[in-house]
C-alpha cells in the first residue's frame, strides 16, 4: 500500500506536515503547523479544546483541504482531495465522534468504501472471513453480523479500529479514542497500539488525558491556538508541564476541600427497577440516598444503566418498581416538568441531543427546561426581557465566550455550550443537580470552572448526583462513590481511599462472581 522507504540512511518520516494553515469563517483552525512523525512510533498530539487538533488530522486524512502547506507521506509529497486518497496512501482515522451507521451491521460498516467484490455483488463471505481474522488477531472480539445499534461504546470503538485495520492502514490516527473507555479498556487499547507499533505501523494519537499520553507516546506535539508550540519527548516532561504548555497556566485538579455533607436527605431512591422497551431489566433494584451538600459519584462502564438511571430520575423513562423521593415528596410518578419545578437541575450526557436547541439563540436556550419558572415566564407568557437579562448574567458569570446572546447555540464551541448549560441548570437554586459527564470533551480551563461552580453550589447545600467516565473527576469531586454494573449498584467506595485502578476493576466486575 504505502511506498517503500528509501533504501539506506534514516527512513523518511512517516508523516510530515509542513506549514499547514486552515481557515474557517472567522476562525483560523490551524496556522503554520509543522509536525514530523517518525515511522513506527506513537506520536501524541495534545492541546485545549478547539486548538485545532481534529482539524489537522482531518486534513491529513483528506476530509478537509488545507489552505496552505504541504503533506508528505514517507517522504513523498501528496495531496488528498478526499479520504479515499488518504486511505490509498495507507492512512486510517478513528474519529473523535463515532463514524458509524447504526442501522447497518458491523460488516457493512467495516467494508463500506472498500468492499470485496464477487462480480458486481458484494462478497459477504470474504468480508466476514477477513473481519474475523483481524478481530481475532488483535483480540477485538467483534461479531461481523451484529447491528451497530446494538453495540456498546467500547465495542463501537473497536469497530472503528477494525475499520482502519481492515483497510491495511500503515498510519493510524486516533482522535481521543480513550474518552469513553475505562482504565482496563484503555490498557487493552494501549496494548493493541504497542502491537501495531511493533509491526511497524505509525500512530497519531490525540488525548486530553495527559498521563495516558505520557505512558504511550514516543513523541508529543503540543498545539495551542492552532499552531505547534512545542515538541517534547515524554521522558523530559510531566503532566503538569504539558498542561502548562497547552494552556499557559497551572493544571487544575478536581478536588473538594472540606465536607459539607449534612444529614438532611434530599434524594432518596428505593428499589428502583427499570425495564427497557423489549422487557430487559436495565436497572435492577437500585437504592441510594443523597444528602444536602453531598456529591454522590457513580462510576461504571458506559451502558451499565447510568443513562437509564438518570432518565428515570428525570422522569423521561418510567420505572416498573421502586420509589423516588425528593425532599420528602414522592416523585416516582411525577412528570419531568414537575421534577424540574421541584428543583432538579440536569446536565445531560449528550448536550446536543438533550441539552440544547442548536438552531435557537442562546437566550431561548436559557428558557429550555425552565419554561415554567421566573425569570423566563410570567403566567402562560414568555418573559423575553427577563430571559435575556438572565442569559447575559450566565454568559458573564460562567465566562461563555460569545459575541452576544442572539447567536444560535450551534455557533458556539462545545466547551462554551457546556458552560451555558451548567449556568442554566445552576440558576433558580436547584436542590438537586444531576450531572452526567459534565466536563466531557471540555478543555482544562473550562473544566476547572465547571468544577468550581459545582463546589460552590455544594457548599450552599446542593445535592449532586455525578456520573462520569473520568475517574479522577469522580474520585476528586465525590463525597461518596458507588459503582454501577449491569444495572445494579454493586459497591460503595470511599473516594479518599480508592484508586482509579481499584475503581476500574470494580466497574468491570473483575474478581466478582455474577
Amino acid at each position: 500500500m504505502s511506498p517503500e522507504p528509501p533504501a539506506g540512511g534514516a527512513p523518511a518520516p512517516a508523516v510530515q506536515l509542513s506549514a499547514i494553515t486552515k481557515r474557517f469563517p472567522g476562525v483560523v483552525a490551524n496556522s503554520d503547523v509543522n509536525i514530523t512523525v517518525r515511522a513506527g512510533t506513537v506520536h501524541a498530539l495534545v492541546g485545549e479544546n478547539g486548538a485545532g487538533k481534529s482539524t489537522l488530522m482531518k486534513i491529513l486524512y483528506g476530509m478537509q483541504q488545507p489552505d496552505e502547506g504541504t503533506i508528505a507521506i514517507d517522504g513523498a509529497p501528496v495531496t488528498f482531495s478526499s479520504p479515499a486518497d488518504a486511505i490509498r496512501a495507507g492512512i486510517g482515522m478513528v474519529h473523535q465522534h463515532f463514524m458509524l451507521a447504526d442501522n447497518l451491521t458491523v460488516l457493512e460498516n467495516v467494508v463500506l468504501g472498500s468492499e470485496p467484490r464477487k462480480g458486481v455483488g458484494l462478497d459477504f463471505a470474504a468480508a466476514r472471513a477477513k473481519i474475523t481474522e483481524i478481530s481475532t488477531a488483535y483480540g477485538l472480539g467483534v461479531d461481523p453480523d451484529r447491528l451497530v445499534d446494538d453495540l456498546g461504546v467500547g465495542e463501537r470503538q473497536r469497530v472503528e479500529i477494525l475499520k482502519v485495520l481492515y483497510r491495511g492502514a500503515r498510519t493510524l490516527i486516533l482522535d481521543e479514542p480513550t474518552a469513553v473507555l475505562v482504565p482496563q479498556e484503555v490498557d487493552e487499547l494501549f496494548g493493541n497500539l504497542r502491537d501495531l507499533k511493533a509491526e511497524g505501523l505509525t500512530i497519531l494519537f490525540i488525548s486530553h488525558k495527559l498521563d495516558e499520553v505520557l505512558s504511550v507516546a514516543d513523541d508529543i506535539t503540543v498545539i495551542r491556538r492552532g499552531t505547534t508550540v512545542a515538541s517534547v519527548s515524554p521522558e523530559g516532561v510531566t503532566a503538569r508541564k504539558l498542561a502548562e504548555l497547552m494552556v499557559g497556566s497551572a493544571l487544575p485538579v478536581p478536588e473538594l476541600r472540606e465536607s459539607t455533607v449534612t444529614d438532611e436527605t434530599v434524594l432518596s431512591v428505593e428499589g428502583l427497577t427499570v425495564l427497557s422497551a423489549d422487557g430487559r431489566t436495565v436497572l435492577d433494584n437500585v437504592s441510594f440516598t443523597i444528602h444536602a451538600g453531598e456529591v454522590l459519584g457513580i462510576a461504571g462502564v458506559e451502558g451499565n444503566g447510568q443513562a437509564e438511571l438518570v432518565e428515570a430520575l428525570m422522569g423521561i423513562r418510567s420505572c416498573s418498581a421502586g420509589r423516588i423521593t425528593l425532599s420528602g415528596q414522592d416523585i416516582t410518578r411525577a412528570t419531568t416538568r414537575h421534577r424540574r419545578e421541584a428543583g432538579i437541575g440536569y446536565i445531560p450526557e449528550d448536550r446536543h441531543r438533550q441539552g440544547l436547541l442548536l438552531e435557537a439563540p442562546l437566550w431561548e436556550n436559557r428558557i429550555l427546561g425552565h419554561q415554567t419558572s421566573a425569570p423566563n415566564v410570567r403566567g402562560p407568557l414568555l418573559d423575553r426581557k427577563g430571559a435575556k437579562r438572565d442569559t447575559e448574567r450566565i454568559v458573564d458569570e460562567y465566562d461563555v465566550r460569545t459575541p452576544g446572546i442572539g447567536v444560535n447555540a450551534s455557533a458556539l464551541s462545545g466547551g462554551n455550550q457546556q458552560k451555558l448549560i451548567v449556568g442554566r441548570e445552576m440558576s433558580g437554586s436547584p436542590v438537586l443537580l444531576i450531572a452526567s459527564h459534565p466536563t466531557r470533551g471540555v478543555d482544562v480551563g473550562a473544566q476547572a470552572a465547571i468544577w468550581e461552580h459545582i463546589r460552590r453550589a455544594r457548599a450552599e447545600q446542593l445535592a449532586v448526583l455525578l456520573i462520569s467516565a473520568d475517574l479522577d473527576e469522580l474520585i476528586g469531586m465525590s463525597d461518596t462513590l458507588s459503582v454501577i454494573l449491569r444495572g445494579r449498584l454493586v459497591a460503595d467506595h470511599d473516594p479518599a481511599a480508592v484508586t482509579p485502578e481499584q475503581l476500574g476493576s470494580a466497574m468491570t466486575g473483575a474478581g466478582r462472581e455474577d
Partner: protein
Amino acid sequence: MRNLTPRSVLLGLAAPLGALVFAALVCGIILAATGNSPIDTVDAMATAAQRPRTLVNSVNSATVYYLAAVAVAIGFRMKLFNIGVDGQYRLAAMLSAALAGAAFMDNLPSFLRIALTIAVAMLVGAGWAGLAALLKVTRGVSEVISTIMLNAIATYLVSYLLNPARLAETTAGSNNIGTAKITEGGQVPGFEVSGSTTKVFGLILLAAIVGVVYWFVLSRTKFGFELKATGLSESAAVASGVSVKKMVVISMLLSGAVAGLVGMPQLLGASYTYSLDFPPGLGFVGIAVALLGRNNPVGMAVAALLWGFLDNAANALDISGVPREIVLIMQGVIVLSVVVAYELVRRYRVRAEQQAVGKALGRTKTLEEVSA
C-alpha cells in the same frame, strides 16, 4: 427575530426579490421557446393587477390560502406534516354548512349562528386531525400516511352525506347538489370595493386574527416555545419537561381546528352552501404557501397574496392567448427559486455568525496573534 440592521433587511429582501426575478426569467424563456410572447404575458398580468375585481378575488383567495397555510404551519413548526388539511376543511365545511343551513338555525341571532357554524367547523376539523394524532401517539402511525388516507376517507364520507337522503338537497333543474342554503342571518357580509362587484370576504378579519394569534402564541407564550422546541429537537424538549405526545395531540388538534376554518370565508361569504363546486384542494395550496412563507405569519401572508394573484391572473392570461398552465409552472419555479435563494442567504448568515463568534473568541488574527 434577529436585530433589524439595514444589512439584514437588505439580505431579507434580496432572497425573495432575486428569486422572483429569476422565476420570471425562467418563465419568460419557457414562453418564448414555445412561441408565446413574454411581453404579452407581462402585459396581461399588469392589466389584471389593475382590475379591482381581480384584486378582490386575489385577496379572497389569499384569505383562504392563508388559513390553510397557518393550519399546515402549526404542524410544520413541530415537524409534523399535516397533509390532511384538505380532508379536514372539506369535512368541516360540509358538516358546518349542513348545520348552518338547517331550518332551526333561522331562529338564532345572527352572531350566534355564525359563531356556532365556525365553532362546529373547528371542532370537526380538529376531530378529523385528532384521529391522525391519536394514531400517531398511541400506535406510532406516521401522520404522513394517516392524513393521506384520512383525506380520501373524508371524500367518501362527504359524498355519502351529500345525498338528498341525508344532509343535502337538490334544486329542480340544477345538476348541482348541496346542503340547504344558509339564509341571510347566517351569512357574513363582505366589504364593498369600488370598481368590483365581488366583495372582499368579511372573514378576512378572521384570517387576520388567526395570523395574529398564531404569531403571538408561537413567539410569546410558553406553549409556543415548547412547540418550537419540540420541532427543533424532540429529545431536548423531552429532557426539558415537554410531553411530546401531548404536544403532538394539541398541535394536531389546533392545526385541524384552523383547517376547519379554511372553508368558512367561502361558505359564509360567497357560496352559502356546500355543494359540488365548493373549491377542493385548498389544503395542498396551504402546504405550498406555508413553505413559501417559511411558516412565518407575515411571510405566509405575502406568499398567500402572491399565490392568490397568480391564480386569479390566469383568466387574464387565458384571454390574451397565453396558456394558463404557465401559472402552475410559475408557482413551482417561484417556490423552488425562493427557497434556493433563502438557503444561499442562510449560508451567508451562518458564516457571518461564525465570524462573529470567532471574533468574540479573539481568534480572527493569524500568525502574529499566535506567537504571543
